[in-house]
C-alpha cells in the first residue's frame, strides 16, 4: 500500500474560487426604494399601534354601531375617560388595604340587616336612624369581615339592578340612597377608599340607568315607536315634556333626601340628566360645590369632591373653576386638621396623618383634572385662584401653600411653567412647611420636574444654589439623598462641578459612621448610577471626591448594581491600563464576587461573572507582562467560584505568552510561567469542551514557543480529557456527538504540526486516539468510522513530502523536514494506516445491511483506483462505506485486495 502524494499548494490554487472585486458592499444600505417601503410600513403601523388613534377609531365605530340602538345614550353618558377612572379606582383600593374586620356603626344597618331592611319604607328607616344613632353604640360595636361587607355591597348592587329591570325603580332608588348613606360613616378610616369605590360603582350604575331611561323616553313614544334621534349635543328644548317630567321627578325624589351627603352623591350620579332640563348644567356643579361645604367630615367631603370631579367630566363642557374651588375647600379642611388642638377631637387627632394620607388621592385626582388640558392662561388663573400668584404675570408670589396641595400642583403643572418660574416655586416650597406633606419631597419633585426639559442656565443655577444651601442645613441622610437625587441630573448636565463636590461631600458627611438604611441605599444607588451614566470614562468618576467613600458605605444588591455599572462602563472603551483603576476595579469585582446573591445563578445569566471576565480580558499592563501575569494569578485566587472566569484567565495568559514571544526572544522563562499558569488553571474548568479546546490552544501556544515537551504534555491532557468523558453521565445528545467529533478532528489537524517523537513513535498520538475510540463503548459505528477516516487522513498527510501547514514561527521543524525521506518513518505510517484501515473496514461491516441500492459512484471511483477485485452487488451500508472509500481513495495510491471487502458491501 502506498500513500497518494499530494501537492497542497497546487490543489488550493486549482480549487479556490476566482476572486472578483465587488461593486457594492453586500451589507451596505440598500438604495431608496427599500427605504421608502420602510417608511410606508411605518405609516401603516401607526394605525394599529398608536393607542390614541386606535381608541378614537373605536369610538367612532361604536357610535356608528349604536345608530338605531336603544342604548346610544348610555354610550354617550359613559364616554368620559372611563379607563383612567378605572385605574384610579384600582389604585385607591390597593393603596389603602383594609384590615380584615370592619366595625359597623348605626348608619350601615342596611349592611347588617340584609334583605329584611327593604320592607321598611325609606321614611321609617330614616326616622329610625335619626332617632337612635347611638343604639348600636350602646349594644357594642358590631364587627363583620371586610369580605362580608364587600359582598353585601355587591349583593346590593345586584338587587338595585334587578329591581330596576323589574320596573321597580323606586326600590332601586331607595337602595341606592342607602348605599350613599354608607359613605357618611368615616369611622374606619382605611376602609373608606374601598367603600367609596364600591359605592361609586353603584352610583354610576344608577346614573347610567336613569340616563338611559330618560333618553328612551325622549326618543321613543310609549308604544315603542321612535319619535326622534337626539344628537350628542342635544339641547333641553329638544326634549319632550314627558321625558322632562320624568327627569324632574327624579330630581324631586333626590331632593327629598334629608341627609346632605347622600343627597349630593345621588345628584352627582344623575348630574348628566340635568342636560334634559337645562342648557347649562354646569351651574348645578357650582351649587354642588357649595353644598359640599356643608360636609364637615374632612374625609367624606374630600371624597365627595373627588366624585364630583369625576362626574362633572360627563357634562359636555365644564369650566375648571369649580375644581379650583374644590381644591381650595379641601385645603381649608386640611388646614383645620393640622391646626386642630390635640385635645379637642380625639378621634381625628390620633389619626391626623393617616387622614391626610387618605385625602391625598382626592387632591391628586382633582389636580390632574384641572391641568388635563389647561392653557397657559388658564394655568395662570388657576394659580391666582389657588392663592399662589398675585396676577397673571407673577405666578408665584411669596405666599405659602399647603405643602400637600403644592406637591400635587407641582406634579401637574405644565413643564414650561415649572421651568420659567422655578425660582419662585422654590421660594413657595420654602415657605410651605407643614406636616401635611414632607417638604423634602417637594424639593425633590421640583428637581425632577426641572430636569424634564432644558431650562435657562441662570434659573437652574439659582435653584441649585438655593437647594444645596437649604439642604446643607438638614442632617438627615435620607432627606438629603432624596432631594439630591432629583438634582444630580441637572447638576451634571450643566457642569456644575462645585455643586457635585458639595453634594458628594454632603452625602459622605451624613453617612459617616452610620448604618445606611434600605431607602437610603436605593437613593444612593440612583444617584451613583446617574453619575456613572453621565461620565464617559470611569477614571473620571474615580477621581471625584468622596465617590469611593460613598461606594464603600453601600452594601447588598444596591452596591452590586452600582459595581456592575462601573465595570460595564470600564470595559466599554478598549483596554484598561491604568494601574490604580485596575486595582480599584479589581476590588470592585472582588466585592461583586463575594456577594452571595450571584453565585447561585446559572452561568448564562451571570452578568457579574461576564462583566468581571470582560474586565480581566480588557486589562492591559503594556510591557509589564510579569505584572500582568501576577494580576492573573491574583484573579484566579480571588474569583474562584466563577467558572467562566478561568477560561478568560487561560486565554489571557496564552495571549500574554504570545505577546511575549512576539516581543523578543528573551522571555522564554516568562512564557514558560504563562504556560505553567495555564496548565495549573486548566484542570479546574469543569466543562469538558472548553477544557479540551483550551488544552489544545495552550498546546498550540507551547508549540509556537518551542516548548515541545509542554505541548506534548498538553496534548496528552487533551486526550485524557476526552477519555474522562464517559465517566460523566451517559445521556449524551447528538449535538454532543458532533462536538466530540469536531474536537477530535481539531486535535488531528493540530497533530499535523506536531513533530513526531522518535522515542514514543511517530504515531503515538494517533494511536492514543485510536485506542480511545476503540475502548469507548458509547461510540457508535458511525462515529468510529468518522474518527478512523480522520486518522487516516492525518497519516496520509503526515506522509507527504511537504506538509500543508507548519507551526507559525517555523522554529519547530514539521515532520516533513524531520523525517524527509526516512523510510522507517514511512513504513511506520503505512503499517499504522493499514491497521486503521482494517479497523475501519471492520466497523463498516459491523453495520447491518439494510438498504439496497447500487453505488455507481463508488464503482466509478473504484475503477479509477484500478480496483479489480470488487464484487459490488448490493451496497447497504450506504453513505458510511461511501465516505470511507472516499477517504481511502484520497489517501492511497492503491489498495490491497484485502480491502475489497469494503467495496463488496
Amino acid at each position: 500500500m502506498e500513500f497518494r502524494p499530494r501537492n497542497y499548494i497546487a490543489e488550493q490554487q486549482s480549487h479556490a474560487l476566482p476572486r472578483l472585486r465587488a461593486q457594492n458592499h453586500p451589507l451596505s444600505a440598500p438604495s431608496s426604494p427599500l427605504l421608502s417601503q420602510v417608511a410606508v410600513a411605518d405609516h401603516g403601523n401607526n394605525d394599529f399601534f398608536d393607542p390614541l388613534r386606535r381608541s378614537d377609531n373605536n369610538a367612532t365605530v361604536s357610535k356608528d354601531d349604536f345608530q338605531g340602538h336603544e342604548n346610544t345614550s348610555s354610550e354617550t353618558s359613559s364616554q368620559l375617560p372611563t379607563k383612567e377612572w378605572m385605574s384610579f379606582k384600582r389604585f385607591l383600593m390597593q393603596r389603602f388595604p383594609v384590615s380584615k374586620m370592619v366595625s359597623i356603626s348605626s348608619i350601615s344597618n342596611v349592611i347588617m340587616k340584609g334583605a329584611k331592611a327593604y320592607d321598611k319604607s325609606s321614611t321609617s328607616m330614616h326616622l329610625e336612624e335619626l332617632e337612635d344613632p347611638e343604639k348600636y353604640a350602646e349594644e357594642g360595636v358590631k364587627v363583620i369581615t371586610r369580605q362580608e361587607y364587600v359582598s353585601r355591597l355587591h349583593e346590593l348592587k345586584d338587587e338595585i339592578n334587578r329591581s330596576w329591570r323589574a320596573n321597580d325603580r323606586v326600590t332601586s332608588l331607595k337602595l341606592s340612597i342607602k348605599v350613599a348613606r354608607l359613605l357618611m360613616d368615616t369611622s374606619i378610616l382605611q376602609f373608606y377608599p374601598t367603600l367609596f369605590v364600591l359605592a361609586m360603582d353603584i352610583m354610576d350604575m344608577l346614573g347610567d340607568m336613569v340616563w338611559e331611561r330618560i333618553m328612551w323616553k325622549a326618543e321613543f313614544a310609549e308604544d315603542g315607536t321612535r319619535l326622534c334621534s337626539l344628537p350628542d349635543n342635544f339641547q333641553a328644548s329638544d326634549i319632550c315634556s314627558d321625558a322632562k317630567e320624568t327627569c324632574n321627578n327624579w330630581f324631586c325624589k333626590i331632593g327629598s333626601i334629608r341627609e346632605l351627603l347622600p343627597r349630593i352623591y345621588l345628584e352627582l350620579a344623575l348630574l348628566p340628566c340635568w342636560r334634559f332640563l337645562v342648557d347649562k348644567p354646569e351651574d348645578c356643579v357650582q351649587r354642588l360645590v357649595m353644598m359640599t361645604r356643608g360636609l364637615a367630615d374632612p374625609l367624606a367631603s374630600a371624597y365627595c369632591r373627588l366624585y364630583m370631579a369625576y362626574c362633572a367630566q360627563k357634562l359636555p363642557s365644564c369650566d375648571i373653576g369649580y375644581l379650583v374651588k374644590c381644591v381650595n375647600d379641601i385645603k381649608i379642611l386640611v388646614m383645620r386638621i393640622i391646626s386642630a388642638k390635640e385635645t379637642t377631637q380625639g378621634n381625628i387627632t390620633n389619626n391626623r396623618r393617616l387622614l391626610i394620607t387618605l385625602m391625598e388621592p382626592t387632591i391628586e385626582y382633582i389636580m390632574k383634572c384641572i391641568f388635563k388640558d389647561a392653557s397657559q392662561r388658564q394655568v395662570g388663573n388657576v394659580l391666582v385662584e389657588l392663592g399662589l400668584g398675585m396676577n397673571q404675570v407673577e405666578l408665584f408670589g411669596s405666599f405659602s401653600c399647603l405643602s400637600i396641595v403644592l406637591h400635587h400642583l407641582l406634579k401637574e403643572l405644565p413643564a414650561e411653567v415649572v421651568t420659567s418660574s422655578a425660582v419662585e416655586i422654590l421660594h413657595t416650597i420654602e415657605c410651605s412647611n407643614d406636616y401635611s406633606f414632607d417638604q423634602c419631597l417637594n424639593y425633590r419633585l421640583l428637581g425632577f420636574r426641572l430636569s424634564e426639559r432644558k431650562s435657562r442656565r441662570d434659573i437652574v443655577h439659582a435653584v441649585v444654589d438655593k437647594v444645596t444651601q437649604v439642604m446643607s442645613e438638614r442632617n438627615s441622610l435620607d432627606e438629603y439623598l432624596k432631594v439630591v437625587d432629583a438634582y444630580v441630573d441637572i447638576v451634571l448636565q450643566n457642569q456644575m462641578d462645585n455643586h457635585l463636590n458639595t453634594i458628594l461631600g454632603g452625602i459622605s458627611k451624613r453617612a459617616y459612621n452610620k448604618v445606611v438604611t434600605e431607602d437610603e441605599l436605593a437613593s444612593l444607588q440612583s444617584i451613583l448610577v446617574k453619575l456613572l451614566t453621565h461620565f464617559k470614562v470611569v477614571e473620571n468618576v474615580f477621581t471625584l471626591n468622596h465617590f469611593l467613600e460613598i461606594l464603600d458605605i453601600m452594601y447588598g444588591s444596591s452596591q452590586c448594581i452600582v459595581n456592575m455599572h462601573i465595570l460595564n462602563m470600564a470595559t466599554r472603551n478598549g483596554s484598561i491600563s491604568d494601574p490604580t483603576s485596575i486595582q480599584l476595579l479589581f476590588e470592585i469585582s472582588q466585592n461583586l464576587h463575594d456577594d452571595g446573591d450571584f453565585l447561585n445563578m446559572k452561568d448564562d445569566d451571570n452578568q457579574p461573572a461576564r462583566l468581571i471576565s470582560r474586565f480581566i480580558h480588557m486589562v492591559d499592563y503594556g510591557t509589564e507582562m510579569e505584572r500582568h501575569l501576577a494580576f492573573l494569578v491574583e484573579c484566579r485566587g480571588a474569583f474562584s467560584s466563577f467558572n467562566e472566569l478561568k477560561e478568560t484567565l487561560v486565554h489571557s495568559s496564552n495571549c500574554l505568552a504570545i505577546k511575549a514571544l512576539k516581543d523578543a526572544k528573551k522571555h522564554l522563562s516568562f512564557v514558560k510561567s504563562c504556560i505553567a499558569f495555564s496548565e495549573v488553571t486548566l484542570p479546574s474548568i469543569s466543562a469538558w469542551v472548553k477544557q479540551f479546546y483550551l488544552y489544545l490552544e495552550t498546546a498550540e501556544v507551547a508549540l509556537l514557543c518551542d516548548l515541545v515537551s509542554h505541548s506534548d504534555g498538553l496534548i496528552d491532557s487533551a486526550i485524557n480529557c476526552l477519555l474522562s468523558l464517559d465517566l460523566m453521565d451517559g445521556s449524551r445528545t447528538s449535538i454532543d456527538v458532533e462536538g466530540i467529533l469536531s474536537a477530535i478532528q481539531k486535535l488531528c489537524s493540530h497533530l499535523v504540526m506536531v513533530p513526531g517523537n522518535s522515542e514514543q513513535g511517530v504515531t503515538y498520538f494517533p494511536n492514543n486516539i485510536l485506542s480511545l475510540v476503540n475502548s469507548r463503548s458509547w461510540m457508535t459505528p458511525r462515529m468510529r468510522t468518522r474518527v478512523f477516516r480522520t486518522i487516516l487522513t492525518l497519516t496520509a498527510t503526515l506522509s507527504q513530502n511537504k506538509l500543508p501547514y507548519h507551526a507559525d514561527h517555523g522554529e519547530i521543524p514539521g515532520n516533513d523536514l524531520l523525517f524527509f525521506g526516512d523510510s522507517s518513518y514511512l513504513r511506520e505510517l503505512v503499517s499504522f494506516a493499514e491497521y486503521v484501515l482494517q479497523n475501519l473496514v471492520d466497523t463498516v461491516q459491523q453495520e447491518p445491511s439494510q438498504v439496497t441500492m447500487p453505488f455507481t459512484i463508488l464503482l466509478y471511483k473504484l475503477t479509477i483506483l484500478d480496483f479489480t477485485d470488487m464484487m459490488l452487488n448490493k451496497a447497504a451500508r450506504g453513505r458510511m462505506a461511501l465516505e470511507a472509500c472516499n477517504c481511502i481513495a484520497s489517501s492511497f495510491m492503491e489498495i490491497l485486495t484485502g480491502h475489497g471487502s469494503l467495496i463488496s458491501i
Partner: protein
Amino acid sequence: MEPLEGKIIVKSSSSISHYGVRLTVNGSVNLQIRGGSAGIIESLYGVLKPISILNKSTEVRPSGKIGLGTTEIPFSMFLRQPGKDNLERFYETFHGANISAQYLVTVDIIRGYLHKTLSATVEFIIESDKDDLLERPVSPEMVIFYITQDTQRHPLLLELKSGGFRVTGKMSTQCSLSDPITGELTVEASAVPIYSIDIHLLRVESILLGEKIVTETSLIQSTQIADGDVCHNMTLPIYIILPRLLTCPTILAGPFSIEFKVSVVISFQSQLYKLHPKSDPTTPTLWTAMESLPLELVRTR
C-alpha cells in the same frame, strides 16, 4: 281652563240597557279638626261642613243600550264656562292633615228601578289655570336672618348661652312651586361644635271655628344643609326642592288658610342629645337654636 277629558270604559258579559249615562264632577274643601291647637271640645265636633267648590252633572249618553264586551265612551267637559265670570274659586288639589281640597268625577249608568245604578268614581287633580296665574315674576327678595344665643326664646344649654354662636343667612320668602327655595347660610361663630343644620319645611293649616282659629302645623320635609361642625365663615347654599304632593299655593280663604314656613334649626353637639333621642325635630330643645321664616308659595307659569 282645559276641559276635563277621558273615557268611560264598560266591560260587560251581557248587554246593558240604561236610562242614560251621567257624569258628575264634584269639588269640595273638607275641613277636619284634629290635634293641633284645637282643644278636646273642638275635636269632638269632628268634621266641619265641607265647602263646596263645584258640583256639575251632564248626560254623556242618552238612554239606550250598551252592547256586550268592552265599550268606550269618550267625554269632554268644561268645568267652568269660558268667558263667564265664575264666582267660586278653584282651589288646587291638596291633601293636608286637616284640610283637603279634592275633586272627584263620578259616572253613573242608571238602569231603571229594578237594577242598581252602576257607578264609578275617580279623583282628578286641579292645578291653577295658567291664564289665571300672576303675571308678575316671583319676587327675588330675600329675607336676612341671624341666629344667636340672644334670639332664642327657649332655654339653652349653659355653654351655648355663655360661649355664644352666630349664624347668619338669607332666604327667599316667596317661592314658585316649581322652583327650589334658595338662600345661603354662614356659620360665623360657635363655641360649641355644630352637630347639624337642617331646614324644616312646615305647613300651617288654619280653620276658622266659630270665633276661634284652629291651627295645625306639620313638618313636611327636612333638609340637612350642614353635617357636622362645618368651617366657619364659609357660605353654605340653601337649596330645597319642594315636595310636589305636599305643597300647594299659599291660600288665605275666609274659613280656612294654608300657609307655609321654613325654620332653620341648628343642633349643637351635646351629651343630652343621647338622652332624649326621640324628640320632635320642630320642638325647641336645650341644644338647638332655630329661626322660622314665613314662606309664600305661588304657582307660576
